[in-house]
């Protein structure tokens, strides 16, 4: 390991490449296994957010819909911080 790299790592500025490899693979394998292309995933993400927004006000900056994988099972994980419920959602939707 080069001294520069060692120092970078010591200062917490750079992850070791082995760790990086695992993290990158976790993401790549989740996508490979789901067989969803990035456009479809993005479209699904937008539609999910639209539906959820009808009921609750969510933080779009923080909101995240992604694929995660563990033990060969891939899950669609949505992490959507709620600001507040929309008053309209308290009554049944009319349409």
């Amino acid at each position, binding site marked *: *390991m080069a001294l520069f790299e060692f120092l970078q790592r010591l200062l917490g500025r750079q992850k*070791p*490449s*082995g*760790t990086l*490899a*695992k993290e*990158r*693979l*976790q993401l*790549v*394998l989740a996508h*490979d*296994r789901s067989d969803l292309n990035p456009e479809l995933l993005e479209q699904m993400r937008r539609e999910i957010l639209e539906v959820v927004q009808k009921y609750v006000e969510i933080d779009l900056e923080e909101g995240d819909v992604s694929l995660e994988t563990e*033990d*060969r099972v891939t899950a669609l994980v949505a992490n959507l911080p709620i600001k507040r419920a929309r008053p309209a959602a308290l009554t049944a939707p009319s349409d």
Partner: protein
Amino acid sequence: MRRPGPLALTCCDPLAAVTNATARIILICSGKGGVGKTTLTANLGIALAQLGQRTVVLDADFGLRNLDLLLGLENRIIYTAQELLAGSCRLEQALVKHKQQPNLALMPAGNPRMLEWLTPEDMRTVANLVAERADYVLIDCPAGVEQGFKNAAAACHEAIVITTPEMSAVRDADRVIGLLNSQGIQPIQLVLNRVRPRMVANQEMMSVADVTDLLALPLLGLVVEDEQVIVSTNRGEPLTLNGNGSPAARAYHNVARRLRGEQVPLHDPTRERRGLRARLLNKLGMAGN
């Protein structure tokens, strides 16, 4: 190109191709090329033969055959799987017996042009024919996930996926595992090859746990990077043949014993403190993978 010659009766009759129920037909595959499939097939073949198992190694890599080279049998090939399928030779004529280890025989790959007409059914026929004379049939699979892979996969019951701890190898292994799963091939076990303990210790290479986590397969063996592998290839004598005590040789022997159902503890060299004692034990050949 058409398949040359008519098939022998035994090959055409689907009932004749019913598998010998006692032989285990194991595919050795990886997706990516150059990760150690052929080396594992040759060494594992010898190691199983030494355990008294009648073993046939079947070269399914018709495009880039070299299982014969690794076994030092390249000058003894007369017939191949091609003549066997065409019915122009008998099974015993096509099988090349290993001189020093008579429990092991090679079924050589035919001409690369066979790829143009070979079908999964053909591979199944060849594998089932050699299975009649064997306890173990190891199929050396070509790289890739195309027809050559599909042919070989159609012929097996179970699989060993081999990979190195590198990004592209692991990703390709995952693709292959998905395909094997979809064909109901079971069990699928993992061999991790060319591990460099020092790089893992520095976290500059994925660890054993990283790779088994990602691929979610049981680990059948762990082979470290070992120069002796190249030396043995040069000689055409697999490391397992002559009681070589190198780390890779021990690892291949252990894979054979685990395949037989023996409980052989898996010692992870990347976890061991590289202290004087450990290095000494290693030198004395008292640690094994």
